[in-house]
């Protein structure tokens, strides 16, 4: 099949000329009758329905009739398409074709906190929902060829810049005036997470973008309901005119098109759209197969690119080590993605987005070789795409009344066929001159008395070549050229008895060939020839086997991903030393029964219930799963929004990354639960998310639903930008004094917001209808929740002054501070913290890395604990997280803490701080079975986790891990061989796409990272 693909590409290239029916003299009215009958063709009416040997009648730019028996209206102009197939024209729903627009650049140096408000634009520079892109359509005949050459007749277009990008337009690719080609002026609202060219700093993170989308949708709704009210005389404030919000006024009824660039973001977009009960289609990424079951749960169509990756660079063995198994797996499976999506019955369209047009068909055929059905492929190109682009009433089928947008092909285009012409609004664009096929014939040429065979080869990329032959004798031809039935060449005819190099001109027609030969002296000899059957590609039809994958598909689809989801086990763990983390302390020689994910019983010499897995834990230690109050693992797209001083609207829960190997590594250190906190770049950061290390499951399953809502606040050097460099000295606050006043202000605003909401709620219905409602504000809402004690504060803090400041401030606003995190000078004000009831989560021994930690001491835990402050140890670090047990042990070394107390600092204490101690954090009957089996005392440096369970499911097992290490290395080796072998053999497929995956950093509290300015792979 590879050869076939080559020949198709080549023919297109060879005879590439855009033959357009010339338009009528502009000065005169065009009254040409435009009734055309395309007869004796196979009609692909729609996916799954074929009419053989039928006629399609076109009048002007529409299909008017389909005739089964070829009884053609007499006045129709007939084109006999025997042997051809007519497909409905293809539709690409994701392009920026014909949109000529760029936002003006702003000449201010960053950071940019605010943009200019001009003409009713949005407050944020990435929101362009007032734009309607039909206003900017400039047809571009040459650019259109990128699609037309592949059989596309219409596209949906938008400017692809910003978060709310404006409203797309669906266009015909016909070479006509803009007014004539617009099929659907207000098609999808284009949306993305990437802020694009917006000069504004906010949002700098993925969670910031998601929050901005959420706020904008809410604002649009509010604007629609309230703008008009504000004109009333009784209102004392006029709501600003905001075209961007007005542009989203009908969003409930208008579908969105969400541009995402990876699988996690695709799922996030789907969730976000579902949350708002909107309709959308999602631009895909080619990795849908890796989480197809999850994707299937959403009712959204997909638009899939054919971005099969280039083979990873494994030829250099040093570099090979840097290539992940996940990358190699994707290389192998990418061509099979469409089949997987299709089998999952998710409707999808195809797009040329992100690839060179000439790679489209070879890739699509590759996908068909990987099991995609032709019917599904056709649906993707026609009906499903038309539905997404909002033109399914006029395009995508061969149906009377539909636009005469057609593809005419010889043979089956999904196999080895060629597209010969594309009809755009009833006008033909020939890609392959139908007459070129004349070359694929046996021609016997009569030159005087001599009969020679003319053999032509039009398969080479650049040139036509050929020879005249008689028996054994071959006369090579040069200067070959073929244009529209006229073939010219020259040949040294001396061996055939004609002197010198002769020049030939041949004309082809239905009857055969005729022409002339011009000899050395300029004498002309007439030629005639007859043609016999053609030689074309019939011999090349072979069917390829469905591919044999050697890679495994795991969840997540990375090394150490799970082949089978973890199952709940009923367990009898016998004769262990059990560290209960509750008042029972440490129990020797004890048994534990786990049933249905719950800790059922603790006792001694228990008998094994039938059907239970028995584990002999003699000499081993059993503990509750470790809880980490402060972690930044398992997220995508930046841990800090950090642009504005207050970003309480952003939610870490929006960006959980279930693919992060950090989850698995945490488990291997016995950590089963962690709070994923926003960073500390600003005083009021984002909302936190407690997760459980359910390796192999989805982002939503990782989230721990029972956890109390919480939020990250921060004090000190980070929030006052002390170590950010000289550019960052303009944002308030720059001192600890300012930090206090910022909090003061934020709390006041939140209070005012809440009371405005409450007052409005108290109004009578009729009054509500007249009054402008308070504008929902997710930023203030989260702060109001803090004041109402519905959201716990975890506040990053170091020095005593700021700790006391915040305690007193909280007391003034009558809320209790949850946990001071890091809190390295907590020991100085432990009395005050204890009196307030705030708890502490600290590092065991970190200090001296910046000025505000110069007074940090490793005895901090003991001092705070002894003063009655509930104390835990957190990691805030990817590596240390897997050794939290050792971190806790350091308090034994530095200040003689008892082992039980030390152990509690990483189990029950943080569980209390996260408000989840009712469910986990200790080995207590009735709690969920989050348990860890160790081979030594868990506080010892020599201890190793043997297994870790969450809710009775074994997510980590040391023995299984060893086996997986082996498997990973075997699988890598096999894939490397396959890559190397294919690179050497298969030259016919187009080169793959270069996908340089951006490895996100290990996130820390103070990671500053504008995710949208990293090259855009997020």
């Amino acid at each position, binding site marked *: 099949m590879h050869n076939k693909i080559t020949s198709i590409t080549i023919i297109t290239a060879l005879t590439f000329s855009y033959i357009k029916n010339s338009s009528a003299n502009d000065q005169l009215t065009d009254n040409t009758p435009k009734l055309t009958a395309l007869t004796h063709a196979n009609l692909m009416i729609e996916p799954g329905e074929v009419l053989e040997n039928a006629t399609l009648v076109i009048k002007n730019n529409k299909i008017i009739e389909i005739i089964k028996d070829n009884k053609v209206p007499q006045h129709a102009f007939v084109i006999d398409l025997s042997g051809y197939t007519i497909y409905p024209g293809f539709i690409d729903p994701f392009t920026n074709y014909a949109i000529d627009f760029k936002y003006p650049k702003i000449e201010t140096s960053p950071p940019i906190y605010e943009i200019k408000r001009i003409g009713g634009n949005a407050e944020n520079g990435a929101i362009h929902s007032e734009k309607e892109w039909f206003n900017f359509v400039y047809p571009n005949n040459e650019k259109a060829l990128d699609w037309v050459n592949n059989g596309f007749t219409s596209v949906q277009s938008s400017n692809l810049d910003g978060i709310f990008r404006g409203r797309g337009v669906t266009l015909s690719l016909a070479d006509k005036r803009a007014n004539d080609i617009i099929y659907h002026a207000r098609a999808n609202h284009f949306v993305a997470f990437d802020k694009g060219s917006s000069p504004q700093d906010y949002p700098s993170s993925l969670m910031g973008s998601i929050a901005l989308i959420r706020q904008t949708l809410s604002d649009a709704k509010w604007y629609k309901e309230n703008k008009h009210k504000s004109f009333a005389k009784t209102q004392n404030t006029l709501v600003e005119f905001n075209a961007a919000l007005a542009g989203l006024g009908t969003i409930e009824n208008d579908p969105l098109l969400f541009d995402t660039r990876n699988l996690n973001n695709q799922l996030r977009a789907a969730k976000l759209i579902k949350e708002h009960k909107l309709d959308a289609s999602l631009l895909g990424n080619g990795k849908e197969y890796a989480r197809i079951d999850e994707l299937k749960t959403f009712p959204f169509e997909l638009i899939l690119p054919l971005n099969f990756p280039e083979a990873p660079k494994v030829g250099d063995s040093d*570099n090979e080590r840097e*290539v992940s198994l996940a990358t190699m797996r994707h290389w192998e499976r990418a061509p099979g993605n469409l089949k997987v999506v299709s089998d999952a019955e998710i409707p999808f369209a195809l797009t040329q987005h992100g690839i060179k047009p000439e790679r489209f068909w070879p890739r699509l055929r590759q996908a068909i070789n990987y099991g995609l059905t032709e019917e599904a492929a056709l649906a993707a190109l026609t009906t499903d795409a038309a539905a997404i682009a909002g033109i399914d009433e006029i395009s995508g089928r061969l149906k009377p009344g539909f636009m005469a947008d057609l593809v005419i092909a010889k043979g089956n285009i999904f196999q080895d066929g060629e597209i010969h012409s594309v009809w755009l609004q009833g006008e033909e664009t020939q890609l392959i001159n139908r007459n070129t096929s004349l070359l694929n014939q046996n021609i016997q040429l009569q030159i005087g008395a001599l009969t020679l065979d003319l053999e032509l080869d039009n398969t080479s990329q650049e040139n036509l070549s050929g020879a005249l032959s008689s028996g054994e004798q071959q006369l090579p031809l040069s200067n070959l050229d073929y244009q529209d039935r006229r073939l010219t060449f020259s040949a040294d005819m001396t061996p055939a008895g004609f002197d010198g190099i002769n020049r030939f001109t041949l004309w082809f027609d239905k009857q055969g060939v005729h022409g002339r030969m011009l000899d050395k002296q300029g004498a002309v000899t007439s030629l005639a020839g007859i043609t016999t059957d053609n030689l074309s590609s019939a011999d090349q039809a072979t069917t390829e086997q469905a591919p044999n994958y050697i890679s495994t598909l795991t969840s997540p689809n990375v090394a150490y991903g799970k082949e089978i989801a973890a199952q709940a086990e009923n367990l009898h763990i016998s004769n262990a030393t059990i560290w209960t983390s509750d008042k*029972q302390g*440490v129990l020797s020689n004890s048994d534990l029964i786990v049933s249905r994910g719950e800790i059922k019983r603790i006792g001694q010499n228990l008998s094994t219930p039938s059907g239970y897995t028995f584990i002999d834990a003699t000499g081993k230690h059993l503990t509750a799963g470790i809880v980490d109050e402060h972690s930044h693992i398992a997220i995508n797209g930046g841990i800090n929004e950090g642009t504005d001083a207050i970003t309480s609207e952003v939610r870490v829960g929006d960006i959980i990354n279930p693919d992060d190997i950090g989850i698995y590594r945490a488990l291997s250190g016995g950590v089963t639960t962690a709070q994923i906190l926003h960073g500390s770049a600003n005083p009021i950061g984002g909302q936190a998310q407690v997760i459980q290390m359910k390796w192999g499951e989805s982002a939503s399953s990782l989230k721990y639903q029972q956890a109390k809502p919480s939020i990250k606040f921060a004090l000190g050097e980070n929030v006052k930008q002390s170590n950010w460099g000289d550019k960052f000295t303009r944002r308030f606050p720059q001192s600890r004094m300012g930090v206090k006043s910022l909090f003061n202000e934020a709390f006041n605003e939140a209070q005012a917001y809440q009371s405005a909401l409450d007052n409005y709620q108290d109004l009578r219905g009729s009054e509500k209808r007249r009054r402008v409602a308070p504008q929902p504000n997710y930023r203030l809402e989260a702060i109001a929740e803090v004041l109402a004690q519905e959201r716990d504060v975890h506040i990053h803090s170091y020095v005593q002054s700021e700790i006391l400041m915040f305690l007193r401030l909280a007391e003034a606003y009558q809320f209790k501070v949850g946990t001071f995190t890091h809190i390295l000078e907590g020991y100085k004000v432990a009395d005050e913290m204890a009196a307030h009831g705030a708890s502490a989560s600290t590092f065991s021994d*970190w200090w001296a*890395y910046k000025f505000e930690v110069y007074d940090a001491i490793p005895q901090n835990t003991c001092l705070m604990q002894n003063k009655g402050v509930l104390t835990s140890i957190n990691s805030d670090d990817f*590596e240390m997280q897997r050794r939290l047990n050792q971190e806790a042990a350091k308090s034994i070394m530095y200040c003689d*803490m008892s082992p039980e107390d030390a152990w509690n600092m990483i189990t029950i204490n943080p569980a209390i701080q996260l408000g989840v101690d009712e469910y986990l954090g200790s080995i207590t009957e009735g709690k969920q079975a989050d348990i860890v089996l160790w081979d030594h005392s868990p506080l010892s440096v020599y201890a190793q986790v043997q297994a870790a369970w969450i809710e009775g499911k074994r997510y980590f097992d040391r023995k299984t891990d060893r086996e997986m290490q082996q498997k990973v290395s075997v699988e*890598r080796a096999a894939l490397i061989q396959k890559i190397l072998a294919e690179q050497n053999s298969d030259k016919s497929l187009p080169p793959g796409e*270069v996908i340089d995956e951006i490895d996100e950093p290990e996130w820390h509290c103070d990671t500053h990272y504008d995710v949208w300015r990293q090259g855009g792979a997020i």
Partner: protein
Amino acid sequence: MKKITVLNQVSSSTLTLSVLVCSALSSTAFAHDMVPATAQSSSIIFKNATVHTVIDGVKHNTNLLIQDGVIKAIGPEISAPEAQIFDASNKHIYPGLIALDTSMGLVEVEMMRPSNDSYDIGLSNPQLEAITAFNPDSEIIPTVRVNGITHAQVVPQGERLAGQSALVSMDSWTIEDALVPSTMGFHLYWPKQGALPQDEKKREKQLKQHRKDLKQLATIFEEGYRYSLASKAKKLSKQDIRWQSMLPLYRGDAQLFVHANRQKQIEEAVSLAKQYGFKLVIVGGYDAWRLGELLNEIEAKVIYTKTLSLPMRKDEPLEMSFKIPALLKQANIPFALGFTSDWNSRNLPLAAGQTVAYGLSKEDALQSITLDAAKILGAESMGALAPGYAANLVISGGDILDPMMTKIEKVYIDGREVDLNNRQQQLYQKYLKR
């Protein structure tokens, strides 16, 4: 059900202990720094101790005599009439630990530029000497030695050839009396080359940059070599301070410490070392275990610094960085453990302990932060407990590698009993009074 009584140090005992320490302190009254100890004046016999000799196994219930800063004898029957007796029953004696690849005394607070002297600019700075910027009064030092670390290698950082390291004692008045004799060592940070980008242009750019880096490096060493030839032939007209400082390296009297982790970097470094016959030490050394034959051929050594790190590559086993010491041992590569840091160097024993669950024996783990470290630095008579060795001792109530057991009671450097107080202990004591 029996409740285990575990090492129950309740808060009351903590308080008692603190009061004692407090009164001992009252003379110095929260001094800004500890006072260096005076030279050993009388001999001491440590009785009935568990002695981790490193060089000759673990001796239980034995005695150890130190005199004039040197270990005199170890054995069950030792007597020295003048000697003080220290009852070390139930206590362990270890050689002082040696922290490699640190910024000790060069950095006080990392993020405060005025307090950071660890790094200079320029590709070729062999003449820089870490010792010249070492601050013996750094508040960090007493917090590190309290964990049994008696000596540290102070290493300059830089872009390429960064300068010379020094071995220092963790208890000293000046940079001069801090300095401990060791083989001169030059530190070279090998050009890094990460994963090759898929994108051809980016790939070419990266490869070009790497070739350029290597070329620059080759030029540096070639110029140094030209200078050494001229020097040997006594044909130098004018001194070049860079190449002048490097003469011992070309003579074979100094070592080249190459900071490199990836296999290709290490191979490139070996190739350079072979060209000039340098004595090579790889610092970092993540991939070094793969290169046993190559490294052994030129008797190169490794300071492995990545124990408490994540695997360098996504697909590597979870425990990769933990088990590399065992793999180095298997490959017969002489190695020591380091912990690249300043304040955090105090976790060196923890890093060594961490390797034990992953294939290294406890004895080898201890050796990798004592004797092996001393050997790599070319420091004589250090890092072990045996007659003739310096009296660098750590007395601990429990296993020094396991924080839950460690109870360091005394530390001796050259027989001088070091003050174990420190800034953090002072703050602790202060706030115990609140």
